[in-house]
């Protein structure tokens, strides 16, 4: 199913979702601006962005790696893809109805940016959003044969693939967040926070539903 065109589209989705997550102030780039201002040091900005990226990467990996194991269940590939799609749709619907920010996130100390980033990406389904895209990119098990050796190879490949997907996505996220933070810090000023911050909650939830629906459509 992974012909060249759809593979390119899926990688595009990995990058685009990364840019989307990175540019969203809710995923933390304003904290990098604050860090640089609080420390009176420009160098604190990239450090904070890297910490946010590390947390984001960990959140992606923590969700994708278990799914990479599931790709071993050759007979149920379709069901897994449909299930993953349903899960993403479910989270999207939940976030649409229950538009609240979990209170435990407010208890993370401001210095623990990586932890905060990990938790926020997990709680808001940023990581889950990638699952259907990732599953689309996984090697087609039919083409591998069904031997033990093939299964082991497949697991390794798909595990590596999960890390690559998480890495590429995070790189895009870090670039978008880094550019936004640098622009605000160096040129635009903090005013943009209450002028240019849009409530993406509904859009975010809808994009989860769309990604899930697309995954199901492709799998069926």
């Amino acid at each position: 199913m992974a012909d060249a065109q759809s593979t390119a589209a899926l990688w595009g989705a990995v990058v685009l979702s990364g840019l989307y997550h990175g540019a969203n102030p809710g995923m933390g780039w304003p904290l990098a601006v604050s860090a640089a201002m609080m420390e009176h040091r420009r160098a604190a900005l990239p450090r904070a962005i890297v910490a946010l990226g590390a947390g984001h990467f960990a959140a992606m990996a923590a969700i994708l790696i278990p799914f990479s194991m599931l790709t071993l269940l050759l007979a149920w590939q379709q069901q897994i893809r449909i299930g993953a799609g349903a899960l993403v749709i479910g989270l999207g619907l939940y976030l649409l109805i229950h538009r609240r920010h979990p209170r435990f996130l407010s208890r993370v100390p401001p210095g623990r940016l990586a932890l905060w980033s990990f938790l926020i990406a997990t709680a808001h389904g940023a990581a889950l959003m990638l699952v259907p895209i990732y599953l689309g990119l996984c090697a087609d098990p039919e083409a591998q044969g069904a031997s033990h050796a093939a299964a082991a190879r497949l697991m390794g490949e798909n595990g590596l693939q999960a890390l690559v997907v998480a890495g590429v996505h995070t790189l895009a996220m870090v670039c978008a967040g880094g550019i936004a933070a640098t622009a605000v810090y160096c040129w635009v000023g903090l005013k943009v926070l209450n002028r240019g911050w849009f409530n993406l909650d509904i859009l975010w939830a809808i994009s989860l539903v769309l990604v899930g629906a697309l995954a199901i459509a492709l799998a069926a």
Partner: protein
Amino acid sequence: MTVRPDPTFHASPQLAMEAPPEKLAFTLMLSPDFSQPDGVAVVNVDRRSAHCGKVVNTLLMPNRGDEFHHFGWNACSSALSPLNGHPFLERRYLIIPGIRSSRIYVVDVKDAPKMKIHRIVEPEEIFAKTGYSRPHTVHCGPEGIYVSTLGGGGKDGTEGPPGIFIMDCESFEVIGRYEMDRGPQDKHYDFWWNLPRDYMVSSEWGLPPQFENGIVPADLLSNKYGHRLHFWDLRGRRNVQTIDLGENQQMALEIRPAHDPVKQYGFCGVVVDTTNLEGAIWTWWREKDGTFNARKTATIPPEAADPADLPELLKGFSAVPPLVTDIDLSLDDKHLYVACWGTGELRQYDVSDPMAPKHSGSVRIGGIVQKGRHPNGKAFQGGPQMLEISRDGKRVYWTNSLYSTWDDQFYPEGVEAAMVMAHVGDNGGIALDKDFHVAFPEGYRSHQIRLEGGDCSTDSFCYPSAR
């Protein structure tokens, strides 16, 4: 929930100072003999309006005897931190506790001067969920709305220590106690914080039997009112350090941290030193190693008086203590205003060097002995008390009542509600506005003031003013 953040949320104190000036003020009115319901008055403070200085609307509550005191907003500039996760709240509701009834009113002022009661949190809900009573200071923060209380459980509020509880910032449901480890803290008054640095500071007034029926002179002279500052790991909800200002430093009240979160210091006003009747300003600060320290940085002397001019309580001293009952810091962290409710003076200090406040301006009005009149010739009962500073730092507003039963002891002739305003000179100094003298409905006293769009004792900022 909105599409963009509330335009009255500002990332830094500097941006808040640049925002348009206030047009409306909300002032709490209390009925000192509980014969009328307490209420909120909306005062026109728009300099270009013909109605400036007039009460343009009032909202009275459905109960009596609440005793309104302090209040706050449901949301402030701190919402702009992604850490808190509430950038799309509206600054729309005033959270007004009744300090005597323990009831909390949530008043919708979105269409101010029109107002309506949005929700009433009954005292039973607060007692049952927190074990606290007598809610006081309100701040919106990381986990919702934080409310300090002056009493614990039981009828007289002495069963267990008072503390802070948290309310949901959207449903206004009481969630529960804030403290996980309160350390030696057993009294409460005010609290505030530095959000990016993640610490909180709280102060002590006294327990309900020490204030509800009036000041207890024996307790004051034996130094039984509060005199400590408590420092907290804000998000860890732990008391990490307690500093005793000295037992003669009676009643450590308002906590005013520097607004710019880069600065790790703040102030606290002490009402009276029982050894010499002085009032004091203390500066507290955070050391590089994270520990806290505090030092008395300014004192205000008592003024000699003929006992014949003094109320019963003070006759034996032949002097009027300044009684530092409120302090407030301008958003640029430059001017600290100090209310001397006893002597009838509003002082301005230049605190550019927080360790050495310089007395830079003064206005005299009211006072136990002086009874200074307003420049318009009218009497001003009581003395300068609850202060509020405009965001741009150019105007200071204040009212004159302290607390129903205490008013009666210090000002037995009464404290008719008043609100006045002073202009701040370009290079410091203050002068009363000759025309601004608000008249409130008959029989009321006036307490805290909140300015539309935020002021100098509500908003917490998560970003510094300068790079």
